[in-house]
């Protein structure tokens, strides 16, 4: 990956002098590298001629120029309008408030992390960035002190660099009340929100990035109906207050410390109706809630098939879990280190959670198990004390240990937590299906192939000896 980026740079630098001065198909001047795209090209000249409030329509073509928008205008691209940074620089910079940029394909920024080469940089309030496609960019959309902006329906694809050399697909810095909606971000580093209040993040998709969404010191943020799949971490909240996380799908986020949702010293949050599946850890809670002003609320979430459903650091206290589904996580709920879960509640009033490993029954049919659910498998307990024992997961020896734990009360560990009113049935999953992602047709074909193989071997085994003289 690295090599490809380098050689690409070389090619551009070598080709640049020959292609100098050719109108729309302008290639960047040879030096300096950061000014590879021409400072003022045809679009720049049209901008210079425009007045505030103008709508400038841009026809198809490849525009190799840095676009500085210093007036409150609306730029609308017709299909095929491409802004190309030539791989050496920033591309669009918005310095006036109230600018709208719509429908462009913006591609090929520089890769200088120190200069934070960006596809679109917004340095003024009330920008509307919508329906753009950003490809092969280091930073995608970078809002600095751009409150009340709208970032909508953009597709942002990062460069094929390794993660340490990538930039953020989306960054908000002191941009309060910004709406981020319906964007698709992939192969970036993070989508990150710094020091921004009242931001709404709705209906976005982030894939193959490091942090699907990262909040730093940002209060009153609403995160709804997004999908975070295959990132290192889905959503990570740090030092933020008053955050709502609802109806999101957090799937297969499996980085080295891969969480669906991570909460670090975050306060007054509510996590509702999310689907959190296939992550290394579904939910990771470190020092949250930070104060005791409001319990951390988890309701209606489906936490399924993660390596660990929820990991609590010993410092975590004051979380309340009701009406969630805990389905087939290898560890349903676990405490890192030798902490206890005492300060968190796994049921409230007459409402507990659904636990797929609940072994009791419901004789009176009220939907609530007749026995308390106590989480206490011996192997889980051993794994918590000695994490390296996870190596023996899925082996019959694990079942042997668990069997011993069930059979001999003497070695049965203390329950980690109890749910006195466990649900007999899972609560409905509202965050949409998890999708299959694989063609079952091929699976069926593969299965049929294996069966055919077995048939051939058996048929061969049963015939082949010449039967002359037997049948004749």
């Amino acid at each position, binding site marked *: 990956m690295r090599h490809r980026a380098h050689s690409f740079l070389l090619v551009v630098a070598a080709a640049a002098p020959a292609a100098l001065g050719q109108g729309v198909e302008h290639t960047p001047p040879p030096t300096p590298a950061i000014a590879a795209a021409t400072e003022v090209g045809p679009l720049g000249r049209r901008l210079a001629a425009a007045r505030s409030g103008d709508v400038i329509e841009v026809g198809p073509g490849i525009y190799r120029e840095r676009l500085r928008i210093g007036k409150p205008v609306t730029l609308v691209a017709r299909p095929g309008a491409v802004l190309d940074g030539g791989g050496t620089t920033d591309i669009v910079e918005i310095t006036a408030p109230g600018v709208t940029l719509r429908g462009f394909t913006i591609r090929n920024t520089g890769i200088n992390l120190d200069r934070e080469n960006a596809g679109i940089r917004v340095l003024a309030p009330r920008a509307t960035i919508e329906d753009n496609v950003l490809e092969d960019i280091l930073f995608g959309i970078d809002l600095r002190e751009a409150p009340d902006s709208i970032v909508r329906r953009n597709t942002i694809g990062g460069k094929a660099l390794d993660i340490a050399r990538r930039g953020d697909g989306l960054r908000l810095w002191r941009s309060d009340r910004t709406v981020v909606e319906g964007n698709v971000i992939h192969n970036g580093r993070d989508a990150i929100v710094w020091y921004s209040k009242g931001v709404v993040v709705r209906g976005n998709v982030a894939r193959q990035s490091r942090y699907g969404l990262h909040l730093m010191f940002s209060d009153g943020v609403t995160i709804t109906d997004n999908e975070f799949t295959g990132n290192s971490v889905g959503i990570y909240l740090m030092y933020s207050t008053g955050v709502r996380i609802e109806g999101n799908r957090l799937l297969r986020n499996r980085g080295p410390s891969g969480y669906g949702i991570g909460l670090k010293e975050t306060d007054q949050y509510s996590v509702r109706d999310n689907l959190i599946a296939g992550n290394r850890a579904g939910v990771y809670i470190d020092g949250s809630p930070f104060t005791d002003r409001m319990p951390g609320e988890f309701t209606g979430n489906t936490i399924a098939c993660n390596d660990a459903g929820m990991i609590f650091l010993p410092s975590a206290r004051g979380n309340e879990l009701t009406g969630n589904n805990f389905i087939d996580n290898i560890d349903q709920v676990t405490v890192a280190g030798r902490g206890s879960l005492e300060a968190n509640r796994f049921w409230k009033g007459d409402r507990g959670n659904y636990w797929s490993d609940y072994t009791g029954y419901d004789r009176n049919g009220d939907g609530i198990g007749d026995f308390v659910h106590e989480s206490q498998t011996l192997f889980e307990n051993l794994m918590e004390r000695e994490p390296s024992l996870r190596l023996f997961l899925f082996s019959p020896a694990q079942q042997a240990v668990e069997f011993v734990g069930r059979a001999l009360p003497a070695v049965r560990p203390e329950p980690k937590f109890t749910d006195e009113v466990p649900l007999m049935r899972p609560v409905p999953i509202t965050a949409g299906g998890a999708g299959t992602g694989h063609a079952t047709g091929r699976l069926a074909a593969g299965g049929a192939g294996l069966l055919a193989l077995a048939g051939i071997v058996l048929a061969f085994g049963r015939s082949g*000896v*010449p*039967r*002359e*003289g*037997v049948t*004749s």
Partner: protein
Amino acid sequence: MIRIEGVTKRFGRAAALDHVSLELQAGDSVALWGANGAGKTTLIRCVLGLLRYEGRIEVGGHDATRHGKAARLLVGYVPQELGFQDDLRVAEAVAFFARLRGITRPDVRGSLAAVGLDPHRGKRVRELSGGMKQRLALAIALLGDPPVLVLDEVTASLDAVGRDEFVALLKQLSGGGRTVLFASHRLEEVSILAGRVAVLDHGRLVRTVSRDEFLAEQRPRLFRSLGREAAGTAEAGCTAPGGPPSFTARSCREASL
């Protein structure tokens, strides 16, 4: 065709064979004679390369151990009892062993017909009687028309009638210049099949004599054993009127001639 030179075989301390040397020219038919434990079966197993031994055995010029495969290709072997619990059918069994001998298009029915088993070709091997199993083993031993036949007390597990029939069959099929090495402790078999007799005693080859010499020596004993046999068949009701003429009686006549 078979050359046995100074063969010694020890099981632990005991020597089952002690410097045995014996040579069979092509067409020779040699009986190994001796009591149980004299070393007959052990010698046969050495010839087949089933046991390791000191000394040297060659079959058709091939070392029985180092080139066992080539040596055994010259040998048809009939064991004491066919240890075949298989659910192979008779014809399939013949075809299987024919393949191991490299016969690509075996005449299975012909082989079976020669031993009178063709009507039973569709039966499973385990359904055969003892006599039929031995005939099957003989059919298998004759696959590919090998120049050497090795027989290890092939009648030991048969009753008197089956024994006589089988020996007659052997006489009929083992001729034609074949080299035959067989272990026996029945005089009538020796008298019918053997040209020479090698007498083993406690693992040592005591001597080799011609059949006639041997029979002359053994005649007194033969009569004793005949008496026992006659009593046995009488008990079994084999001499009942209308029964088949006893091979034993005929072999005695031959022997006394």
